């Protein structure tokens, strides 16, 4: 596990303490937004983002991630809390006074202006002289590889090209933080994959703070320095992609990231930091849980990643970290095989390498023994 995990260690929502604004970077302090009618869109969010960091706000639709981004950009007014950039509060500034710019969903290009005029718009607003703004707009277009198309209207561009114009248009104003609202949502899949790489490279080159909103787990994992998982207006977990993928802190994160086996059971044994949990079907899982205060007899949840589950035909029955299941469905996905399993009435999932498909094909209805390692088990907080 990389060293930087320590810095961006797992923080559950309950533990997030109000931050003291720092001199450098962006701080969201007790940020709250409730809409008329009683809907709370964002509830007491605390977050610090460093300059040069690529942070992804991830969550299902309606979780408050877009509202959070819009508050940072000044397009929604917070109901409470503060937004501080480099020690200065942004809350009272209108969007055009903030050192942030947004790449909007669906690009939001100006249809009546050429590509060059779109990119030069921000500079025109700053009253930069014509020659200089043309030159700087061309530089920005060069950065995204669109100089030949500078005279076209947005309508005559492909989705990927429009996306790059939108990027050039915000970069030309040299913002301190770039806010991206579902920036890849309108692109087809192959183009999405390509733009992920381009966006991330661009961010590294510029060393700028990027805050990117998405509901796509894979996108978040592949692009972020740090992922902020949100659900129902609150932050669930803030961590680097590896931690989010392998060590979900809460049940919601484990479910949202997908392909996690979540086992509800009772703690039956506790020796030092090692806890053994057993579910109602007798499946036992052990986990190292330093600092956890739950006692023997408490009900708890553990999560095991589907990719950490292996087939273990010769294993010992009734052991810890093993289970006997029925194969419900064998799903071949090329690189891997997704085994849909059942223990008692509960669905379990194992992902094994694709080359095992010949030995698994057609075995629906048979029983199979699975096993996993203790370090792949994660104790979830409520």
């Amino acid at each position, binding site marked *: 596990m990389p060293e930087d995990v320590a810095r961006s260690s797992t923080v559950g929502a309950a533990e997030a303490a109000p931050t003291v604004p720092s001199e450098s970077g962006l701080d969201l302090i007790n940020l709250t937004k409730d809409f008329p009618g009683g809907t709370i869109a964002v509830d007491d969010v605390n977050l610090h983002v460093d300059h040069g960091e690529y942070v992804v706000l991830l969550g299902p639709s309606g979780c408050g991630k877009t509202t959070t981004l819009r508050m940072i950009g000044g397009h929604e007014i917070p109901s409470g809390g503060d937004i501080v950039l480099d020690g200065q509060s942004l809350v009272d500034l209108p969007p055009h006074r903030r050192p942030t710019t947004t790449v909007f969903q669906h690009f939001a290009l100006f249809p009546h202006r050429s590509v060059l005029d779109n990119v030069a*718009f921000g500079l025109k*607003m700053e009253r930069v002289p014509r020659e200089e703004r043309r030159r700087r707009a061309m530089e920005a277009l060069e950065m995204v590889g669109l100089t030949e198309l500078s005279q076209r209207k947005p309508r*005559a*561009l492909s989705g990927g090209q429009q996306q790059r114009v939108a990027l050039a248009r915000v970069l030309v104003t040299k913002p301190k933080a770039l806010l991206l609202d579902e920036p890849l949502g309108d692109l087809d899949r192959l183009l999405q994959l*390509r733009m992920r790489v381009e966006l991330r490279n661009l961010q590294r080159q510029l060393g700028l703070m990027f805050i990117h909103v998405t509901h796509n787990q894979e996108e978040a994992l592949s692009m972020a320095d740090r992922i902020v998982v949100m659900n129902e207006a609150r932050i669930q977990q803030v961590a680097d992609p590896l931690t989010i993928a392998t060590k979900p802190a809460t049940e919601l994160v484990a479910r949202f990231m997908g392909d996690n086996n979540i086992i509800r059971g009772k703690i039956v044994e506790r020796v030092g930091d090692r806890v053994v949990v057993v579910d109602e079907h007798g499946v036992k899982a052990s986990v190292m849980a330093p600092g956890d205060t739950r006692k023997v007899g408490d009900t708890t949840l553990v999560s095991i990643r589907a990719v950490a589950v292996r087939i273990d035909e010769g294993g010992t029955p009734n052991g810890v970290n093993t289970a006997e299941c029925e194969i419900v469905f064998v799903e071949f996905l090329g690189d891997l095989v997704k085994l849909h399993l059942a223990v008692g009435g509960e669905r379990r999932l194992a*992902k094994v390498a694709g080359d095992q498909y010949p030995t698994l094909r057609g075995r629906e209805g048979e029983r199979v023994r699975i096993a996993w390692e203790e370090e*792949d088990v994660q104790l979830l907080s409520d």
Partner: protein
Amino acid sequence: MSSSSPTEPQIDVAVLEEAATIEDSKAAERALGEVQARRGGGGWVTLAWGLPGFVWLAFYLVAPLVFIILVSFWTRTDTGFDRVWTFSNYGDLLHPFSLDNSYWKNMLTSFETSVIAVAACLVFGFPVAYFLALKVQKLQNQIALFIIALAPFWTSFLTRSVAWAYPLMGREGALNQFLLKLHIVNEPVSAFGFSTLSVRLAMIQLYILFMVTPLFFLLGQVDRYALEAARDLGGNWFQTFREVILPQTMPGIVIGSIFIFVLTMGEYGTVTVIGQGAVSSVGTYIQQQVLGIQYPQGAASAVLLVIALLLGVFVITRFANLREEL
């Protein structure tokens, strides 16, 4: 099996490049499709469909226009005209080239009325359209308010004109009574009676919808995210309006202006009902000549009016070509 197994598809650069090329060629295809669509080639079906319209236009619009042009070059008599070619109808209208000539005087007054009407409809109509299209959030409310705004279209022209002329604006009308009660004026304002002011006020109210309607539809198509983007990129409200909203609504302004200019310049109904003979316009001038069986002169006046209207429309359309300057 270790947790580092490849759950993600490998990103193959060659495949991605190809995808981008396909995307680009799609855009090119789209552009090509538009060009082809513009070239048309609809063929016989479209022609057959359009034929009744052509016939109708030819019979009711082109033919009368041709007759008017012909009559305007014929010699007038006490009972109508002889088919003897002459330029004297135009000569009489154009010759005494002074403002004493009632035709030119009427032409200028009508032109002034039209310019005022266009300007007032734009100034007062834009905020209405802006509010309806961009500030009213719910579509149902938008439609309901728009239908209410359309009231002048679905109440009879004459009803409103009569209400204007006597009970509302007249010397003893509600407006004057109101001002007297409040002691804003000491005696009734006669300009609210059968006057040019009354006629112009009525016209603005009658024709403002020709401005609100196209503006409402064009403003409704303005991407709200693009407006947020403009604000985000440093534009204040006025800059956003000038740089993003106004250029996109220019076609609506031009269409509305053409409608209002053409309709008010030739107006005759409103002038007659509201002006009650105290106000004249090109329209009433032509009508008087027709009533006085001065067909050739009336025809020549009408032809000159059409030319003036065409010139006006030509000037207005020049605004649509205003290039967005970087």
